[in-house]
């Protein structure tokens, strides 16, 4: 039972059901939720910037903020699934590069290809690359950090080989495809709404399905999960494949939003994404955190960049602030964990 006990104490109140809904517990639950600090930081940042420059929340400003965050949100959601299972995928920047270039290639070679088909094909391509990671990690049983560091270079190598100096520009793709990342519904960009839908679906999967709960159990204690009968290999493989799928989706959107895709697209983005997940309350050692938190973390990090450029703050501070946020998130996680352990000890003492 231990795996389940630990995971259910670790997973925070947002998704939990069935306790007495008094106002006090609701407020307490909100304040102790893993997502609370990052959400508070995001709100404070936006309000502070808005107070200094009203254009920050103009129509165009809001649209830019959301569009900037969309791709990182998708990547952070995928990454958090993997991190929750006590793994990590460092190769997503390279997967993003390959899939973005694949998108450009598809449109250039098949001018009449339907846009939905590109989304499907490229997302599956991403899933395939993710599945390769998953296979290597589960078969070799070498830490994912090492495996995906390897595939980071292998995938990037293939991207360089495939693309060479070729770049595809927005002009090479249909206007309707580029408009996807421009057009809005009630002021909200279409692709951002799509990303939110992904967040809701994945959050439901992680919080409410057997497979999703298994990933938390694996991340909390892989050995216990195995003894308990959780098919660890299959679940971890699934986590990597889904992450690849989302990175592939992000690759398509990258090609829609930005001007050029080529050999260096997505270079180095993996660290931003891991940072977003950690800042959003996903514990780097697995077992706790939510995809909602990771998505808010992604929003926070991209907003910091926009905010600091709008406030004309030096670039150096931007990186320093992100660093401080990561350290703060890790410290907060440590404190929560120590408190949870103490609570467990006391409850075990009562039972025993």
């Amino acid at each position, binding site marked *: 039972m231990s795996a389940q006990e630990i995971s259910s104490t670790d997973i925070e109140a947002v998704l939990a059901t069935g306790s007495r809904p008094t106002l006090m517990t609701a407020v307490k639950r909100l304040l102790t939720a893993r997502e609370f600090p990052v959400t508070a930081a995001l709100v404070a940042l936006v309000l502070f910037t808005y107070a200094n420059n009203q254009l*920050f929340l103009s129509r165009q400003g809001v649209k830019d903020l959301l569009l900037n965050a969309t791709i990182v949100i998708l990547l952070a959601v995928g990454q958090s699934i993997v991190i929750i299972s006590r793994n990590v995928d460092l190769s997503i920047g390279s997967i993003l590069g390959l899939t973005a270039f694949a998108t450009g290639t598809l449109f250039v070679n098949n001018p009449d290809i339907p846009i939905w088909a590109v989304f499907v094909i490229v997302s599956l391509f991403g899933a395939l690359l993710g599945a390769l990671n998953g296979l290597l990690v589960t078969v070799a049983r070498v830490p994912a950090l090492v495996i995906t560091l390897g595939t980071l270079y292998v995938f990037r*190598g293939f991207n360089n080989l495939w693309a*060479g100096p070729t770049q595809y*520009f927005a002009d090479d793709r249909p206007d309707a495809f580029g408009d996807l990342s421009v057009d809005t519904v009630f002021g909200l960009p279409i692709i951002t709404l799509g990303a939110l839908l992904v967040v809701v679906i994945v959050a439901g999967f992680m919080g409410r399905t057997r497979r999703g709960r298994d990933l938390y159990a694996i991340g909390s204690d892989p050995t216990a999960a195995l003894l308990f009968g959780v098919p*660890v290999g299959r679940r971890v493989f699934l986590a990597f494949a889904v992450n690849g799928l989302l990175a592939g989706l992000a690759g398509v959107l990258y090609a829609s939003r930005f001007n050029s895709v080529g050999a260096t697209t997505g270079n180095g983005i993996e660290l931003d994404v891991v940072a977003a997940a950690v800042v959003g309350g996903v514990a780097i050692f697995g077992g706790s955190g939510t995809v909602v938190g990771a998505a808010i973390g992604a929003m926070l990090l991209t907003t910091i960049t926009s905010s600091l450029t*709008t406030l004309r703050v030096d*670039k150096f501070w931007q990186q320093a602030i992100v660093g401080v946020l990561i350290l703060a998130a890790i410290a907060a996680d440590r404190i929560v964990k120590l408190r949870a352990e103490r609570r467990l000890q006391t409850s075990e003492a009562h039972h025993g």
Partner: protein
Amino acid sequence: MKSSTRAGEANHWRRLTSLIGLLAVLALVAAACGSDSTTAEPASDGSAEDGAGSGDSDGTSDVNDLSITYIPKQLNNPYTNVVLGGGEGGAAEAGFEGIAVVGPLDASASSQVSFINAETQAGTDVIVIAANDPDAVGPALQEARDGGAKIVAFDSDTNPDFRDVFISQVVAKDVALIQVELIAEQIGGAGQIAILSATANATNQNEWIKFIEEELASNPDYADIELVATVYGDDDDTKSFQEAQGLLQAYPDLKGIISPTTVGIAATGRYLSTSEYKGQVALTGLGLPNEMRPFVKDGTVTAFALWDPAQLGYVAAYAGRALAAGEISGAEGDTFTAGELGERTVGEGGIVIVGPPTVFNAGNIDNYDF
């Protein structure tokens, strides 16, 4: 995937070993193909486009067996590719035997050093380099020179102590002036402007920016133009995008942006053309016609400038040949013939100028393909 732990353990090492083997093979294949595509690529494509490097050797038999290696800022960059195309064409025409292109995939300061070291060990006669950092490559270049190599800097200069000549696109000041002229014209001679550059330590961009600032300050025609900010997009699409957004929010009265880098101007063009600022904020700078064409056609950009990048590599090849053959030493006043482009003179500080910048607009952009 899951087998009982003990049985799994027996197979574990075998599987691990075969996995490592597989990865190693993959890596070797990738490496082999990679080096195919980066070194000794035939010189046909880029140079044919402008006709500068089409073909046959013109009887420079006195300098047989010379080898030349180009080290650009970064491989797989479309601008660099045009430069290198011209360079390989020029090198073949000038009679070099061994022609190679090597370089890093990222444009960081120290990434070129190991490539220079390898060329020194290989005994390459001429190293043509576009420096990511003027000083970081210094000691490695000095070693190469001690070993007898001639150093030709092109595109982005090294510290003059470490090279024989520098092939400059155009007079740095001309590049700066034409950009100021274009932006002044586009914003009607008055208002706030900003610069969106590459990296904060890029040699060529910083020199142009210095001249732009001087010109704005000294020329009375530009008295009403105010340069409010210089920001750096690091030649990265995403970063340039966000920097452009930040500029427009931070300076609501901004009338125009100068982006003296091909990545920056294209990213800014893409952002402007997809935002409400399209047509409101002028954009000019240095761009590739192929990349800028849609933005010129949709009215986001009226005019921008560049030189013919292929000629840069072409002249660098002939300068390298003249140096290696001992015809010139890189001193001021030395002259050499740069193939079809005719005679070039080494100017003050060992600088060789390729030609004047070209202005591209809706009227002429379709005549260019690079």
